[in-house]
């Protein structure tokens, strides 16, 4: 009986979204907005929206290949890493935009967001504390 119960439990654990982190978009506490919807987050991180409440946004990114980064862009933009690279290459080489600055892992992103006005990034929800403001929770 016990083992019978354990197997589904184990399966549930294996296939539960354990590997899927709960990601949040964070901003410096001085940000002029409190909430963003997914559409706005997408426009921000594709470089189409450059200001929030009149303030210039400084986008921060996690390192290429990190699990959080893959998950964030897949969920928010629906684009793969290669597609995004191609998208940004077109903007860079036509002088029309610049991709978010890569600052490291979640911890590095959080500390930069906490200390620079206008900064916006995404981190694992568990890394959030009072030093930053949460603008959006990924579904």
């Amino acid at each position, binding site marked *: 009986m016990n083992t019978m119960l354990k197997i589904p439990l184990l399966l549930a654990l294996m296939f539960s979204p354990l590997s899927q982190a709960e990601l949040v978009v964070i901003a410096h506490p001085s940000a002029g907005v409190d909430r963003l919807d997914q559409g706005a987050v997408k426009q921000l991180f594709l470089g189409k929206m450059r200001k929030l409440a009149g303030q210039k946004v400084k986008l921060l990114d996690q390192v290429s290949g990190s699990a959080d980064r893959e998950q964030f862009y897949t969920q928010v933009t629906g684009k793969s890493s290669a597609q995004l*690279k*191609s998208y940004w290459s077109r903007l860079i080489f*036509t002088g029309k935009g610049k991709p978010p600055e890569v600052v490291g892992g979640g911890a590095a992103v959080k500390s930069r967001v906490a200390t620079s006005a206008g900064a916006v990034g995404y981190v694992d929800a568990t890394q959030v504390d009072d030093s930053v403001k949460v603008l959006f929770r990924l579904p």
Partner: protein
Amino acid sequence: MRMQGKRLPVALLLGLCCGAAQAEFSLNGFGTLGVAEVHGDERRYGLSGEYVDELRTEPVSRAGLQGRYQFNDSFSATGQLLVRGERSRYDTDVEWAYLSYQATDSLELRAGRLRLPAFLLSESLDVGYTYPWIRPPAEVYSQMPISRYIGGDLLYNTAAGDYDMTFQLMLGQTDSDVFMGGAETEMQARDMWGASVTLQYDYGRVRLGHVAANIDVDTNFQAIAEMPPGSFVVGNARDDFGLVLEGLDGSFTSLGYSYERENWVSYGEVAVRKVDGLDFPDTRSAFLTLGYRVDNWLPHLTWGWSEVTDDAQVNGVSIKEGEQTSWTLGVRYDVQPGLAVKAEYQVIDADGPNGYSSLFETAGFPRNVDAEIVSFAVDFVF
């Protein structure tokens, strides 16, 4: 409360200081390294005759380095150095060199050496990594040999939700060394103006553009003097191997789109070229590409077509309705972000009164030419 009181001046100070401290430099590069060869009824193909009947790197290889210096929120300077393969050699040029002024959130003014906004893909023409093919379809993309100009433009951008609309207006002139029909050509364009509108959506974009200019052409056919006499001399022959045309009014109009949704990728463009007189052919051209992405693989199929629409003469023979059609089967494999490998097989069929209406260098006319091109390339960006 005390914290808040302190934070405000600090934020203000940051805001002030960073206007000056925001200056930053960024350097990016791109390149395509590959080989290609043509086999069939003729032994040379391409605007500069860069494709020959043995594997060569010139037809498909190029590399660029781009630097951008952002002085502050409004001003930036951009320069791009490009090395590009052409007929039997490589050529290095400054492709972009301009100053940009972001006047408002939606208005940007640029001045200097800029890319001529003739095609859907004009501004990223050499960045192979940004599109599926090794080179954009030649039937359309060889119709305008000028790639850049000196002058200025105005870009006005307006967004509504997921839609994004950009208007562009340019004025300028150019003195370019280009290739036409395999021959080195000095092309001057004066009183050049252009306008375009691009509608962008999440899944792609549609662009309509028009450029017009008054052009002078001075062609030197010495470069292909090894060809049989009289085979490729157009217009008023000079020194048996030249062509001089002056003060021709010309225009180029293009309508194109790109689309990418889920696994489907598609591109298409139609273009019309009109030039005064019968020495410089008027043309219509089009291409259509359809691709389907499977993981990191993107197989794609392209149809390309161009046709001479006026009574243009080559050595006194009309080349009206001379046309070129091609089919290209290609595949792109994304190795990792920033690196892609591509292979293509193309079948080309040129029909009509004279080879001049195609991209082949033909030794006689009337002539129908069939040929195939095989290309491989690696694209990278950093």
